[in-house]
């Protein structure tokens, strides 16, 4: 498995995107966003997505050099159509607009429809946080068939519909970044277990009859099983409730679509809808008191003695920061299969394997 320095890995992605026809700004946004996901430890949303994007661009499902189009502008409310563009571009442009509105009005409620894969949603919360904003993001997925079953159900009806909420940094704490799939596990983890030939933890999967299983192949063999909602046996209705609300908040309020048989396209198509709430805290409270309250609360929860001294209480965003520091210094591990697919994607846009290897510094 190659380990690639993050700047070199970015360059690999940049060159592939450029060769496919993206302009320099788009290639930059795509490359930095994907590598940033790897740096935070979320490989399921990292550079391994690029081959899928390139494929989708050839079938016309992903539109190169598209931009966010404002469909409805009501001041506090913005409705944006992503026109099937790279989610890395659409998400970035939409957040810029939303941040500007939140500065103006204190609040922006922004919807995105028809964006290609918005990728790691935490990235959008982080962009808002870096502008001093608090934000919440509700996401749904259309295009590929559902993977997640409703609580009590026995088959997949929608995707991993993430929820994200982010607070800006204070004098003493970096950004607080909550970003999770509303399924018990991310689909990427099931793929990894299947490839490694290991079982999943109990509670994550059901087979096609709705029975609990630990076999990752149920997501790949017909009749297919599904991932269960987060919260498990005792509280799966809560995770399911969030998933179904995200489906409708993101899919309906955006004027987009929800995941249903009639909106299925293809395994490689991932279109996201998103409802973002962006708030300027300075329009609500004194910023000094705001920061003091965040710091005091974080200190208070972190002071809970750990059950296992090696695993202290963290706040959302801490695990990603630890991974970022580690991988920033030591490089990003890219598994063989992913690297093979990236080389293949390069070849499909006219870049020779040895050229990409040279850029990556991989033999």
């Amino acid at each position, binding site marked *: 498995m190659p380990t690639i320095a993050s700047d070199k890995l970015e360059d690999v992605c940049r060159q592939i995107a450029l060769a496919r026809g993206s302009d320099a700004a788009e290639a930059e946004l795509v490359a930095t966003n994907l590598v940033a996901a790897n740096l935070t430890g979320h490989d399921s949303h990292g550079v391994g997505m690029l081959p899928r994007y390139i494929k989708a661009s050839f079938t016309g499902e992903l539109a190169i050099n598209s931009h966010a189009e404002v469909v*409805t502008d*009501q*001041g506090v*409310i913005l409705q944006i159509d992503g026109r099937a563009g790279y989610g890395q571009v659409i998400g970035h442009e939409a957040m810029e607009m939303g941040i500007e509105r939140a500065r103006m*009005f204190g*609040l922006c*409620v922004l*919807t995105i429809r028809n964006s290609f894969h918005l990728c790691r949603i935490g990235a959008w919360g982080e962009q808002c946080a870096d502008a001093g904003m*608090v934000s*919440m993001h509700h996401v749904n997925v259309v295009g590929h068939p559902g993977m997640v079953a409703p609580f*009590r*159900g*026995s*088959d997949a*009806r*929608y995707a991993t519909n993430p929820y994200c909420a982010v607070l800006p940094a204070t004098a003493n704490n970096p950004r607080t970044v909550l970003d*999770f799939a509303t399924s018990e596990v991310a689909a990427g983890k099931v793929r990894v277990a299947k490839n490694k030939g290991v079982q999943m933890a109990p509670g994550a999967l059901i087979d096609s009859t*709705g*029975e609990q299983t630990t076999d990752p192949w149920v997501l790949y063999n017909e009749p297919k099983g599904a991932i269960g909602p987060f*919260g498990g046996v*005792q*509280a799966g*209705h*809560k*995770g399911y*409730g*969030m998933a*179904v*609300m995200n*489906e*409708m*908040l993101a*899919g*309906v*309020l955006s004027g987009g*679509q929800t*995941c*249903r048989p009639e909106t299925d396209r293809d395994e490689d198509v991932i279109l996201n809808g998103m409802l973002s709430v962006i*708030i300027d*805290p300075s*329009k*609500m*409270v004194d910023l000094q*008191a*705001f920061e003091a*309250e*965040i710091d005091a*609360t974080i200190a*208070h*929860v972190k*002071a*809970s003695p*750990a*059950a*296992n001294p090696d*695993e*202290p*209480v*963290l706040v*959302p965003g801490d695990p990603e920061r630890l991974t970022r520091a580690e991988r920033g210094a030591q490089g990003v591990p890219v598994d063989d299969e992913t690297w093979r697919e990236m080389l293949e994607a390069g070849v499909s846009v006219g870049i020779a394997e040895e050229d990409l290897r040279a850029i990556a510094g991989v033999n």
Partner: protein
Amino acid sequence: MPTIDHARLTNAIAAIVGAGGSEAAEARTVADNLVGANLAGHDSHGVGMIPAYIANRLTGGLVANAHVSVEVDNGAVVVLDGNSGYGQVVGQEAMDIGIECARDFGAAIIGLRNAHHIGRIGQWGEQCAAAGLVSMHHVNVMGHKAIVAPFRGTDARYVTNPYCATLPATDNNPPTVLDFATSMVAMGKIRVARNKGELAPEGALMDSKGQPSRDPNIMYEEPIAGALQPFGAHKGYGLALMNEILASAMTGGLGCRPETKYDPPKIINNMLSIIIDPMKLVSRQFFNSEVDATIAHVKSSPAADPAKPVLVPGDPERTSRSTRISQGVPVDDETWREITAAGVSVGLTDPELNKIAGLAA
């Protein structure tokens, strides 16, 4: 266990709140809200709260006939102080203001701080939904001892910090009302398990040393009690922490910490509400047809257990409501005893209250 007609129960509760010094309209609002929680099946937020309310009234922590004051008005962004008034009243006033703002601007954000206990949060989502609006609500609690532990932690650091998200009704579906505690189970369920001598659900509790436990008595140990676990491990914990901070830091309220106790005692909620007018984004026809199609799609997933079909948020409460409206609200003996004792503390008598409730004197 008495089963009390909901209208009579409302009258009994209104009589007690009124005798506690509230105007008739306030007494009625409080009673309607609490009985509404019982009707929805959430007894932990129902009339059983009255003894705590009246105790806090008598010591002055809960202020009768208080109203919200507008602390910040920036158009779509409003911060209100509940002035330690009945949460049922100041919550409703806050939602009224938020609904008006959302109609004006398309969306509004309402920070409500220093409200005395605002009851079942779903009711605020339902108020917005009845006005045709979508809403999300993030809540924290102060003045109550901490009962929920952070993921990986070993002691309680905050309370059950609920999250609520609600969609208005369509042609074919009633409002979709998601409303849950970010702990694995609500404290009310632990109280019930303890009273019945049953074990708590697997994974719901930890003892005072942070070890997993199923003994509900550990939540009542002194001086250090056990703690409720978050639901969904790090994810439910993340939601709880975000609610703690969103509801406090964004409203000018405070978090649940040792230094934020009250004397005299009171249970304070802070809430950050986002209210959105969906008709500013999509047509009513589109909204109705897409919500209906999505609900039909998820409900058509074959049930793993045919006796337990797939539901959408709000369904269990609707079922309970129709049963209890027709059959009455069960109030356990201990709760009714505590309620009548609260009535006595403000000058009413047991026979009087039993008569209003339609129970034998």
